[in-house]
């Protein structure tokens, strides 16, 4: 197990390197001088010269990439054009917000999705099953930004129960996280249902039934654990989509996270900020995938750790 974990951690290194290379090349693909782009709207020749030196822009591309990596490892992500503050500092202000929102949405959608999936699978083709699967289909079809706006209209504008935008109290988290779960919950519910149906047909379940175990013990003791393995894979993929969706949801709810920072950065042509935000997302995704693989190995004893 330990060797597998170590190997899997080592495998993140090429992923991170390639992701950072993509981020690095992004700025070079944009027509124009990267130093002028990084200096902002009103470039001072001295600032541009300093930036050229600092990022090694006179050197060949591979050397530039090396300098970029060195700067990033040292925590130097450049200075935001818009605020004049270091990008790393700007990230440190926003990352906790994004993490909290995503974690709440992930926990909420996992719990709800698996529960609905289990309930549906134990009563296949019943009214409960058909209704939840129909809602699940609508859930995957509705864009999170629209669901978010409709929730905002109902609960903030009409009913006045919850704050519409911003952060500060736990109440501020309710609408954005519910909007974010709108996609992940249905995906998990559908996957749980279909893999539960598959497991419930198998021989060991029949054996459990013939032993006279209660339905509850069969479903929760025997079936769920076996049905969850494919659900974890799907969860990993849909958490990725959830984080992608958080970029849009943060914008809808004026929620000061990394996603809003990315979008604001694009509009302000604040390239150091864009670079920083994308880099943070790349790191989050890499670790998310690592975490999913670890969980997978933990839950499924059939995975060999060679």
């Amino acid at each position, binding site marked *: 197990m330990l060797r597998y974990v170590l190997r899997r951690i080592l495998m993140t290194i090429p992923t991170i390197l390639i992701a950072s290379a993509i981020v690095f090349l992004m700025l070079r693909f944009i027509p124009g001088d990267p130093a002028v782009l990084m200096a902002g709207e009103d470039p001072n020749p001295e600032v541009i010269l300093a930036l050229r030196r600092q990022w090694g822009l006179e050197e060949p591309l591979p050397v530039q990439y090396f300098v970029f990596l060195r700067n990033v490892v040292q925590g130097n992500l450049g200075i935001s054009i818009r605020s004049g503050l270091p990008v790393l500092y700007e990230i440190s202000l926003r990352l906790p917000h994004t993490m909290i929102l995503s974690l709440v949405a992930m926990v909420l959608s996992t719990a709800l999705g698996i529960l609905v999936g289990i309930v549906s699978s134990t009563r296949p083709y019943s009214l409960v099953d058909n209704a939840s699967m129909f809602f699940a289909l609508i859930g995957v079809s509705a864009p999170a930004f629209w669901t978010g*706006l409709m929730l905002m209209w109902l609960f903030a504008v009409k009913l006045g129960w919850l704050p519409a935008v911003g952060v500060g109290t736990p109440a501020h988290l309710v609408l954005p996280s519910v909007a974010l779960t709108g996609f992940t919950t249905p995906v998990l519910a559908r996957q749980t249902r279909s893999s539960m149906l598959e497991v419930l047909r198998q021989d060991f379940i029949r054996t459990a039934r013939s032993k006279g175990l209660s339905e509850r013990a069969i479903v929760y003791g025997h079936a769920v654990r076996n049905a969850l393995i494919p659900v974890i894979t799907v969860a990993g993929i849909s958490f990725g989509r959830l984080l992608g969706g958080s970029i849009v949801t943060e914008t809808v709810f004026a929620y000061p996270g990394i996603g809003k920072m990315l979008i604001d950065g694009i509009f302000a042509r604040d390239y150091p900020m864009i670079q920083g935000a994308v880099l943070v*997302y790349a790191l989050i995704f890499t670790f998310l995938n690592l975490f999913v693989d670890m969980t997978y190995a933990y839950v499924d004893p059939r995975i060999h750790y060679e």
Partner: protein
Amino acid sequence: MTWGVETMSQQKLIYLKFRRNRLAVLGAILLVFFVFCAIFADYLAPYDPFQSDLMNNLAPPSSEHILGTDELGRDLLSRVIHGARISLHLGVISVGTAFVFGVFVGAVAGYYGGLIDQIVMRAVDIVLSFPTMLLAIMIVAVLGPGLTNAMIAVGVSLIPEYARLTRSTFLYLRELDFVQAARMVGASDPRVIFRHILPNSIAPLIVQSTLNIATAILSAAALGFLGLGAQPPLPEWGAMLSKGRVYLMVAPHVTLYPGLAIVLSVLSLNMIGDGLRDALDPRMT
């Protein structure tokens, strides 16, 4: 002598299975409706979708304007109808592009295997570990906002999925007897790939494409909403939502209807995709 059931062709069987699925049929009807709107938008729309009427802006739904008017007094129904044209066009073009490139890459990787396969699949895995949305936003950040760039961004972000799917079916099919036989009689590699393997791997690709058009419409609408996709005054559903949300307090209908159009069109494609998957899966009876 043969019985009817046995002589039934594969296509007929698939069609019958699809038709038995009520949700899939409902999806197909909905999609036909949207395609109809897209093609005949110029005749169906009661007003010019660009004609503003500032005296009559943010008007609630009435007999004159069935869905009301937007912030510039433009007829919302006309704009939603014309939006169908933009969204469907965008979905088909971006998925078509992704299909061509992704299938080609996946076919080469799956057919030749070895080092090419290793390199291509490693790259695909890394790109797939980023969600489509972030990838699309990154591409638009480089190319600049706009409808065409949004289409490119969505298309490119869907390529890895096709590559992976095509590769896995090619890996399986290339070992089968009919492929070996074709090779044995001296068919060239492109001939084996395009004439023998590809036609047999088309079913999962069609299912995936239906679902991908749904994803593409959602992604493009999100880009439009963020202001990175279609630009005003184009009646793109996402962009309409982004303008309308400012007036959420006074005129929620401006946000409601374009969003409903997105949900219904994406829903129709998802229902068809699910139905096709069940119909094309030989394990389902």
